């Protein structure tokens, strides 16, 4: 019961863009950064929710998180020049580290607003696992600008700045992490490359099917 309460009371947001696809669409996401590598595969029965699996391996340990995931588009606001979204994100499953197994859960909120020229997003996250005394929290924001505006099917380029806040990290350099990155986007393919303020690389890939 306690786990369920904690699960419902935790908040996490993984670093994802567009966590829900079109109705009937499959999405493959790969995220690799200073902290971990994540492989996420999800299916959207409608354009307002997605179900999937998520596998995560942490860089500085032999820990693996295996989760089932559910994302929901809570609210969308469309205009002739912009789109704004509010998403709920949840994950729950088991974490494996050596011979140990832990119950593992995430619940998060993400918001974004974008035009064809500008992009902003904010995500807040809590993560509960049996091996974490009080869970962990992090938040993240992004701003971006497209140097040119392309039509559908063109190669779109974005310059973005990402700021992460990890209050539980011991090192000051890891409490706040800044990552300038470039996003390339064409059709059903999106990829991002960046290097953070500690010199660690970030490579993300999203493919819609």
């Amino acid at each position, binding site marked *: 019961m306690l786990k369920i309460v904690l699960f419902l009371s935790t908040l996490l947001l993984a670093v994802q863009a567009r966590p829900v696809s079109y109705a009937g669409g499959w999405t493959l996401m790969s995220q690799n950064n200073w902290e971990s590598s994540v492989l996420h595969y999800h299916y959207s029965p409608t354009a307002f929710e997605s179900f999937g699996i998520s596998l995560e391996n942490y860089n500085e340990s032999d820990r693996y998180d295996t989760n089932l995931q559910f994302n929901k588009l809570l609210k969308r606001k*469309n205009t002739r020049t912009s*789109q704004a979204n509010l998403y709920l994100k949840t994950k729950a499953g088991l974490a494996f580290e050596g011979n140990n197994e832990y119950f593992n859960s995430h619940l998060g909120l993400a918001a974004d607003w974008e035009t064809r020229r500008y992009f902003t997003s904010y995500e807040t996250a809590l993560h509960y696992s049996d091996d974490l005394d009080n869970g962990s929290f992090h938040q993240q924001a992004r701003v971006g600008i497209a140097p040119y505006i392309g039509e*559908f099917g063109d190669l779109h380029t974005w310059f973005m700045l990402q700021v992460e806040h990890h209050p539980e990290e011991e090192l000051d350099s890891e409490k706040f992490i800044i990552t300038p990155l470039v996003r390339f986007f064409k059709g059903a393919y999106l990829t991002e490359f960046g290097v953070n303020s500690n010199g660690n690389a970030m490579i993300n890939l999203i493919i819609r099917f």
Partner: protein
Amino acid sequence: MIKKTLLLSLCAIFINFSFAAEKATEKKLGETVLVNVKGLVCDFCAVGLKKTFGKKTPEVNSIDVSLKEQKIILYFEKDKTLADEKITKLIKDNGYNIVSIVRNYKAEKSVE
């Protein structure tokens, strides 16, 4: 000899493409419908709409999406069409809003 073979192969491919293109243009299409929408900001939006109309509506021969003009053009098969309500539902179910639907639209060129 190799050069000749390559040249002949290229010619054959070119002729094949020419016939294919001619066949496509000769194929008679039905009504063209312009749908003005709100919320199209990126290629994922356009890909989703193209997949939706490609999978769920055999009445639609092809679809063009313009992010710049926030419009979708539906090219129907000959003697086929979809009611405004159905078009509206499919687009709203994808998370976008309809501004207007223009029947028998004269598309001057592909917007892609």
